[in-house]
């Protein structure tokens, strides 16, 4: 069993290590996200004051919940499927992707492990810095009103952990799908241009999904990208319990399975008619 997993663990380890090396990028990203988060929070504070007078008891989220939501979104920005694996895009252009097909490994799992490692390698340093900044530093600096609040209970924290792991797997599956699109179209541009904005908006990253008009709420909760940010955030805030919690996790698992199955089918078809570039 362990033997069977060896190549995939190795792919994960190698990608994790190379991604972690981009320390300056992680620091720059963190600073940008602090700035962006702060601006977002000021805008929400102004809106809440105008619309609801104060903390906004009538709003779907209270202001302090929205602030926590913004910080979590900023901390987990790297969880978004930002596009096809850039190494694979290069390999497709130069024809070196042939070497991925020359390995005695299941290509889908191989790419899935690489994608997971790359997302985690980008996510973990940024998320830890952001949690330290918004969760620990801000309250100690007397800015508790603008800080990230911890989940209300251990159970909520555990649910958040499960949900974010499902989100990670879904994001990696989407990246693999984008890799396949790149192999088919020989360019990463098309797939990335479609998926990235969709993911940013529909995950709640730009605006919490709960703040969208009421008529769209059911659709927004049910669509796959909710699992990349909005649902984990709701677990963190402690607003999903019991049947609704099970439904939300089930929804995430179902989309994950659907995208994985679709990806495997697309890859099989692609390999059937593949033409590697270059003589």
């Amino acid at each position: 069993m362990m033997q069977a997993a060896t190549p995939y663990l190795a792919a994960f380890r190698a990608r994790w290590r190379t991604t972690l090396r981009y320390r300056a990028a992680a620091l720059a990203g963190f600073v940008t996200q602090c700035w962006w988060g702060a601006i977002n929070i000021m805008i929400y504070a102004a809106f809440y004051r105008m619309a609801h007078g104060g903390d906004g008891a009538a709003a779907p989220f209270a202001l302090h919940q929205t602030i926590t939501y913004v910080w979590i979104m900023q901390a987990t920005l790297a969880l978004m499927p930002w596009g096809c694996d850039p190494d694979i895009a290069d390999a497709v252009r130069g024809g070196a992707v042939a070497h991925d097909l020359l390995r005695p490994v299941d290509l889908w799992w191989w790419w899935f492990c690489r994608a997971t490692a790359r997302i985690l390698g980008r996510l973990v340093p940024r998320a830890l810095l952001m949690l330290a900044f918004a969760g620990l530093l801000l309250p100690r600096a007397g800015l508790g009103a603008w800080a990230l609040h911890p989940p209300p209970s251990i159970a909520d924290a555990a649910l958040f952990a499960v949900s974010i792991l499902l989100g990670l797997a879904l994001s990696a599956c989407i990246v693999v799908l984008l890799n396949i699109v790149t192999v088919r179209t020989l360019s990463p541009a098309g797939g990335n241009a479609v998926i990235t904005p969709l993911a940013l908006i529909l995950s709640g990253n730009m605006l919490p999904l709960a703040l969208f008009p009421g008529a769209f709420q059911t659709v927004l909760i049910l669509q796959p990208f909710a699992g990349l940010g909005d649902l984990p955030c709701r677990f963190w805030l402690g607003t999903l319990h019991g049947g609704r919690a099970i439904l939300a996790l089930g929804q995430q698992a179902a989309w994950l399975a659907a995208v994985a199955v679709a990806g495997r089918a697309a890859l099989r078809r692609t390999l059937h008619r593949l033409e590697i570039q270059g003589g």
Partner: protein
Amino acid sequence: MPSSPARIVVEDLCKSYRVAASPPGGRRGLAGWLPARRSWRTIAALRGVAFTIEPGTITGLIGPNGAGKSTLIKILSGILRPDSGRVTVGGLVPWAQRLRHVARIGVVFGQRSQLWWDLPVDDGFALLRDIYRVPPALYRTRRARLVETLRLADFLDQPVRQLSLGQRMRAELAAALLHAPPLLILDEPTIGLDAPSKLAIRAFIRDLNRQDGTTILLTTHDMHDIEALAERVIVIGHGRVLADSPFETLRATTLSGRRLIATFDGPAPAIALPAGVSRLPAADRVLALDFDPARIGAADLLRLLAPPGTPAGTAAPADVTITRPSIEDVISRFYERHASTP
């Protein structure tokens, strides 16, 4: 009958590509935005290729650009599926049994790297060990041997992107051999290398074949690779096998002529040219002759230049060289001869 792990059988192999052809320039102005009718053309890359390669041999696969070599290599490696025909490598059909097949071959593409750009060479090797599930003890001995014979020790800890081309190719060869494949496919392994690197790579390939019995299939445009390594040459052109023979046979049937250059102290004498000999324009003191050794032997020709009894220092040539046409000439002539074949 259990197939030997590296016996390659190719029968009646065909593969064609469909390429989109758009009229040059396209439509003018905004009309270019409208969906254009695309016409498709079919290009036959391979049309009925057949050969058998026995285990433990070195075979050179040559042919001009666009002849179908790369298509053939991709099919044999299991990454491309032919339209029709049969291929087995050690009893496996490469594209249908891809995972089992690729575990038993090593492939080096001279123009592409299989090592990970950002990883140090040795980390890449460790990754390959895990990918091919090489047992640790076996891996240690193989790695040590490859590091020694390919002289990799000095740059094992460097990221691949910092290697020179010669270093990289040596590392690529090691990377393709860590799982000890019985078949090694080399696609232009010496491209762009300097002379010492080429010699080192050739020596390594020859030793690998002799000592480990590794079957080697090699494509190249450097005919010296072929001359130094291949017992047998398969020439591909227009998607067909144009020739399949030892290189010396190819030479004898294509360009068997020899050239004799004689330099004299005084003006070169005028001699009566026997059948099968032609004189080339040259300097006054030089006599340059092309001759066909099947019709007149070199010794007879020399006797003609300096008949027995000629006093030394008078009409006898001061210096004589006899050369064979270069291997490049042989191949160019061969390609020319087949250029018009559809």
